[in-house]
């Protein structure tokens, strides 16, 4: 099947310190890929490079086999195809819940207000936030904010959604509601790259697990196999720390 996103020897340094040391990755359509690894291993940086929030130092990012870095694709159009969901939600504080989902559509995709509203309502209903359309982000709990953020991402009808530790900033009792939404999306065939610390989610929901350590992909494969029989020592050490 066709690759949606391909990373080729992706490297990223911050003031001389190399965070990503050459990542090669292929994401296929309808695939749910979980990216795990300890803090500082570079997994969030990789995601931010894919969304071009960080400029890769070297290497290439291909979207449908066209280089994003060499400027063959309009950056803003590309970003609207691979939207991101953040750890800190990053909802627009000056807008209501509904506007958060409508405005990006009207501004970026040139959709009419009515059309955008209809689409936004569809996805707000899906994440269970339809009753809160007039609320402001400041009035919502973390779990609610993240669900709105997911609805905002879905409203763009993207090809891929990048999740950057979507549950890490949530209180434990709110993690479930967000993961439930993500589980549903995964079952519907949405292409997702999920950077997460939720091992159960990675094991049960994803099609493939990628374990990043010190800026390289250390191990990747089928989730069941990875969690039951990790091949590398580093993956074993990481999992034993997590499971105990």
């Amino acid at each position, binding site marked *: 099947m066709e690759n949606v996103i391909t990373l080729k020897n992706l490297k990223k340094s911050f003031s001389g310190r190399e965070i990503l040391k050459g990542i090669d990755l292929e994401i296929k359509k309808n695939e749910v890929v979980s990216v795990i690894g300890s803090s500082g291993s570079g997994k969030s940086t990789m995601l931010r490079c894919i*969304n071009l*929030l960080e*400029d890769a130092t070297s290497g290439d990012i291909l979207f449908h086999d066209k280089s994003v870095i060499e400027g063959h694709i309009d950056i*803003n*159009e*590309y*970003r*609207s*195809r691979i*939207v*991101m969901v*953040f750890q*800190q*939600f*990053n*909802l*627009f*504080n*000056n*807008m209501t819940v509904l506007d958060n989902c409508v*405005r*990006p559509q009207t*501004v*970026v995709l040139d959709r009419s207000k009515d059309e955008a509203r209809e689409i936004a309502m569809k996805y707000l209903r899906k994440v269970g936030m339809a009753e809160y359309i007039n609320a*402001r982000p*400041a*009035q919502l709990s973390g779990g609610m904010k993240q669900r709105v953020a997911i609805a*905002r*991402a879905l409203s*763009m009808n993207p090809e891929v959604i990048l999740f950057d530790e979507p549950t890490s900033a949530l209180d434990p009792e709110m993690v479930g509601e967000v993961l439930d939404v993500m589980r549903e999306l995964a079952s519907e065939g949405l292409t997702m790259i999920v950077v997460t610390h939720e091992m159960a989610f990675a094991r049960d929901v994803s099609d493939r697990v990628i374990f990043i350590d010190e800026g390289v992909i250390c191990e990747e494969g089928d989730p069941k196999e990875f969690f039951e029989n990790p091949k590398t020592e580093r993956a074993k050490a990481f999992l034993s720390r997590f499971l105990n």
Partner: protein
Amino acid sequence: MTFIENVINIITKYHTLLLDGLGYTMLIALTGTIFGLIIGLLTGIIKTIPMSKSPILKFLQKLVNFIIACYVEIFRGTPMMVQSMVIFWGYAFMNDGNTLPLIPAGIFIVSINTGAYMTEIVRGGIISVDKGQFEGAYSVGMTHWQAMTNVIIPQVMRNILPSISNEFVINIKDTSVLNVIGVMELYYMANKIQTMTWNIFETYLIICVMYFIMTFTITRILRVFEKKLAGSDTYTICGSQSDPNAEIRVKKEKEEFR
């Protein structure tokens, strides 16, 4: 004649001059502040454009930023009274002695001066907005301009409104320096009245009171406006935090104690 008689005399005889002056002062201060804000918003947006990767664009960006920096430094670093003379007579010098019409000249000078201060105020406002707001906007595909106009500037405006009010009040007072080029604002009128009556103290005391009434009422009005804009997520903590027995309650704006 006594002091009070003099004051009454000036007011009855010259109130049209005084009110005209007051009107022009308000007109110049208000339009100058608005245009200054527009200048500040534009320069603020330009200054925060992320650096381009292409060398030509990067050079252009740096050049534009340098020009803006020069503008800000020059207009903040010289007195507006001197700027008025240089701009007004500079124009006349370069146009065979034809001078600019006075009121537009006054508005131009105040705008460009305010713009220099506003540039820094807006830049500070943009920097103070959470970085996540930019990332949220960029991540769904908004351009810098779209992110600014839809997401960032509305939040900046709310944050910098007190500074804008402050600039407006400063401008009401500072338009008085425009009398050096003959703009008929309040100070110029007082100067004129004073030469006709020779009641120097009384005349300037009257406009002193007039200036104060203007700035005071404007300040109060803008404060109400600011509060309204700050909206529902402003909280006031009730009760002394240093008193261990006090019950600390949080009062939401326009809401009764719980």
